[in-house]
């Protein structure tokens, strides 16, 4: 068995080493260097970039990012769970159509999805135009360029990532279980609460991870829907690699963020990487 297993693992190991671990180690190397006069990465070696992280300013940004990502994740789960339940209970053919309908908006590209929301939320956008013409409001509502718009954009952008794992989890549940619960007099709500929810904890975890992580690193959504007025940790990182041209500091923030996410996942979800995959 060992030879076949080795052959099977070789390509993924090669890709992981060459295109993930080696590039990542370059970033680790950068994080211990100094920013050059014009933004290059130069000697001397230093741990200063990590010391700079212990600054209340970055704590505030991290906290805000955690709050917004958590809000988006919770909303995604609240929306995705009933939807996944609905899809899982549908007939075989309807099931796959329903699933495709969840993924379909995803193929129109992230930018277009964000753009669609800008189109709706602008002062002269559709929502305001309709409300104005119906005389419900006299002044356009400031819907775009605030934190609510960012959270809506994040939920919209990552909802399918929550639906897919929940669906595959729910689909495997024994349907007889719920029927038995109903026979024993449980209301639908009680059977969901006491039977289904505990059993789909793994799906919930996977969904939460798949939504939370990209939200935490997001920078385009806060830029486009938030109008650059409140930055998340992703913007901070992106800014170091672009406008500020401080690659060493950007690398240090990135690595600290990754370490934090790994710690959060392993302690909160009580699983190591191997079990998660």
């Amino acid at each position: 068995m060992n030879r076949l297993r080795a052959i099977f693992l070789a390509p993924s190991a090669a890709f992981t080493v060459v295109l993930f671990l080696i590039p990542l180690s370059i970033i680790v190397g950068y994080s211990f260097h100094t920013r050059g006069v014009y933004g290059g990465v130069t000697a001397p070696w230093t741990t200063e970039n990590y010391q700079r992280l212990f600054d209340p300013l970055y704590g505030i940004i991290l906290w805000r990012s955690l709050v917004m990502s958590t809000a988006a994740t919770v909303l995604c789960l609240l929306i995705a769970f009933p939807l996944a339940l609905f899809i899982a209970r549908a007939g075989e053919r309807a099931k796959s159509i329903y699933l495709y309908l969840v993924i379909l908006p995803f193929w129109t590209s992230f930018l277009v999805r964000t753009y669609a929301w800008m189109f709706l939320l602008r002062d002269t956008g559709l929502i305001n135009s309709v409300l104005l013409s119906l005389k419900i409001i006299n002044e356009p509502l400031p819907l775009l360029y605030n934190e609510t718009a960012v959270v809506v954009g994040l939920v919209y952008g990552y909802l399918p990532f929550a639906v897919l794992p929940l669906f595959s989890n729910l689909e495997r549940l024994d349907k007889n279980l719920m029927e038995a619960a109903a026979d024993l007099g449980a209301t639908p709500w009680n059977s969901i609460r006491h039977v289904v929810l505990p059993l789909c904890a793994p799906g919930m975890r996977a969904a939460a991870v798949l939504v939370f992580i990209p939200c935490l690193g997001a920078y385009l959504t806060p830029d486009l829907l938030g109008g650059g007025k409140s930055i998340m940790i992703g913007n901070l990182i992106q800014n170091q690699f672009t406008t500020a041209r401080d690659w060493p500091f950007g690398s240090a923030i990135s690595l600290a963020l990754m370490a934090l996410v790994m710690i959060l996942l392993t302690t909160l979800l009580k699983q190591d990487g191997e079990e998660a995959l």
Partner: protein
Amino acid sequence: MKQSRFLAVFAALVYAFLHVPLLILCAFSFNSSRFTVWEGFSLAWYRAMFGDAQLGEAAWNSLVIALASTVLATAIGTLCAYGLWKRGSKWLSGSLYLSLVTPEIVTGISLLAFFQWVFRYLQIQLGMHTVILAHVAFSIAYVLLVVMARLRTAEPALEDAALDLGANEWQAFRLVTLPMLQPGIIAAALLAFTVSFDDYVITSLVAGVDSETLPMVLYAMARRGANPVVSAISAVIFLGFGALILLSERMQKR
């Protein structure tokens, strides 16, 4: 099982949330004005879209890249899942998990730094190949995640039985486990295609002169301001892929 009315209504609302913004965008791609005020039906933006050679090329590049990286990532990821299912490997699954939690911008920058370093020794250029390699690299973990979930429900005893009956290991994999994995593999491929076709951040950092993708062109257009051509493109993607799904469902039914 009977659907509860609450669930059906809720699902309808979620589908509306997912599709209405894009459908509105599609509708306004037929507007003769650049702005949100409806001024009459026009196909001008579609003419502009089909007349734009750069767009056509970008769409083609996106398709080629997404298909190539989907095939590669699905194959590699499935083999990897099977290998890890047989016996775990802490460093490999740990690294793949880490790649899943790496912010996109970091993945992109690290690949850019890596290619810059490689280019010092090898005379190669950024292009379709670097984009495909990058996409495969970040899609493997997604494929692994989905296929592994399916493998967890598999029965190892079945393969043992096949081995007892004289099959070799390859045949046991090929004839027993692989067919069982098929739904998971299809779902994984779908996910891999989606993340590849959609990616902007990483692609924009590793793309060369002749490998601009649709999201890159769309990004530049959207940043320039209200542009109904962007709406027209999304309408074509949205309705085109939608038709494709319905068609494939029909074919499966027969």
